[in-house]
């Protein structure tokens, strides 16, 4: 048996998955808030993007984000592999109680993998995608708005994007409240509310990102 410490223990791995997951939840909120500038207009959105990448702190932020992603995925994968092994032989029939598992909780590893694929494509398409230029208030900067609108002119791209955002909504809808429980926060009167907020947040994120994609489609 390898030594048992916080990082190899069941609860330790869960808590690390949860804390990095919460960090990523924070990122999804911040990213969505930034994307909403698309509604304001091309210049506002481009200037915001330019402001972000011109700030040297962006490298620190990106490094932290990458570390959170990698840690989250590695820990979640270890937990999932152990969980599959722990069952052994499957049941011939297994009926859910109706008050436990949800679609979101059951599909955590799958929605996670969908997001992983999404994130890789997303980075290739946008961060490392075509470099158009524009000028806002005399400053030359990358025209991300043009690139975004261009991608979303394709209805298939919009459909895949919406699909991935539903996966994200499901994942964080279970994940948000789950991570608080994993960190030991459970209270008879607050926890039911936290669960509602968690689901509401998942719905909001899914609708927010998808809505913007559909909006961009109609800009074409």
């Amino acid at each position: 048996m390898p030594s048992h410490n916080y990082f190899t223990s069941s609860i330790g791995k869960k808590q690390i998955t949860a804390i990095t997951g919460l960090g990523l939840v924070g990122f999804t909120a911040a990213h969505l808030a930034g994307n909403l500038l698309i509604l304001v207009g091309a210049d506002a959105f481009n200037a915001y993007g330019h402001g972000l990448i011109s700030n040297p702190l962006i490298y620190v932020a990106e490094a932290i984000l990458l570390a959170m992603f990698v840690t989250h995925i590695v820990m979640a994968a270890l937990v999932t592999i152990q969980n599959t092994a722990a069952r052994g032989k499957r049941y011939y029939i297994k009926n859910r109680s109706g008050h436990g598992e949800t679609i979101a909780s059951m599909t955590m590893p799958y929605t996670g993998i969908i997001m992983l694929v999404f994130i890789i494509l997303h980075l290739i398409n946008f961060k490392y995608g075509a470099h158009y230029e524009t000028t806002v208030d005399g400053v030359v900067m990358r025209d991300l708005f043009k690139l975004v609108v261009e991608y979303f002119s394709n209805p298939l791209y919009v459909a895949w994007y919406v699909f991935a955002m539903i996966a994200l909504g499901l994942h964080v809808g279970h994940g948000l409240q789950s991570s608080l429980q994993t960190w030991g926060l459970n209270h008879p009167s607050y926890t039911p509310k936290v669960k509602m907020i968690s689901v509401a947040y998942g719905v909001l994120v899914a609708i927010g990102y998808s809505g913007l994609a559909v909006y961009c489609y109609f800009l074409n």
Partner: protein
Amino acid sequence: MSNVEQMLTLNLKIWRQDDRNDKGRFVDYKLEEVSTDSSFLEMIDMLNDELVKEGKDPVSFDHDCREGICGSCAMMVNGQAHGPNALTTTCQLHMRSFSDGDTIVIEPWRSRAFPVLKDLRTDRSAFDKIIAAGGFISVNTGNAQDANNLPVNKENADRAMDAASCIGCGACVAACPNASAMLFTAAKMSQLALLPQGEVEAAERASNMVREMDELGFGNCTNHAECEAACPKGIDLRNIAHMNREFLKSKVSGK
């Protein structure tokens, strides 16, 4: 379902396995004249009487108290631990919960940490090992004291009592999609950690019990709450949150 006694004819699909190494298989049985007033275990007794008369091997299953307190009567009934009713063990389940002509599928608990011994019987000594790793109090508490010397607040007393109602039946492991033993372990930890005598060793206890639980090959909780729904004693997930805190504290304090 009605309160008037009726006789049922049932199709049973029961897991039969000779020993640990046998691959096992489902065998179908037809059982007639089962009273709706009989308990589920009495129904299996009836089947076994017939099997014995026919010179066949009876279905092996664990049972002892037959009143919901010993935790022996482990079996999955139609894909649910201890059958369809909430807050009941299999021995407390009555045949009036079923209808004439029903097919009932009966399987053992499935978990790598609970190997099948024979038919529906599993080896659940893994739970004993978790207890042996720290589910006790070893500090010297001296002579019996005056009751009011050790004040315990009402909430902790109630929560400890609720946690202590765990009968160690294993339904939580059986129902959990990850075959996690966290509800059991948490209940056995909370019932002690919430009280002054048990609090003293809370950190070592958390560390040792979780280590044992992990090494026995149980899964990790992913907060589905199927365990809570399956628990015949209504032990709730708050215990797992408590365990998660106790474990973190134990590691922060270097235990």
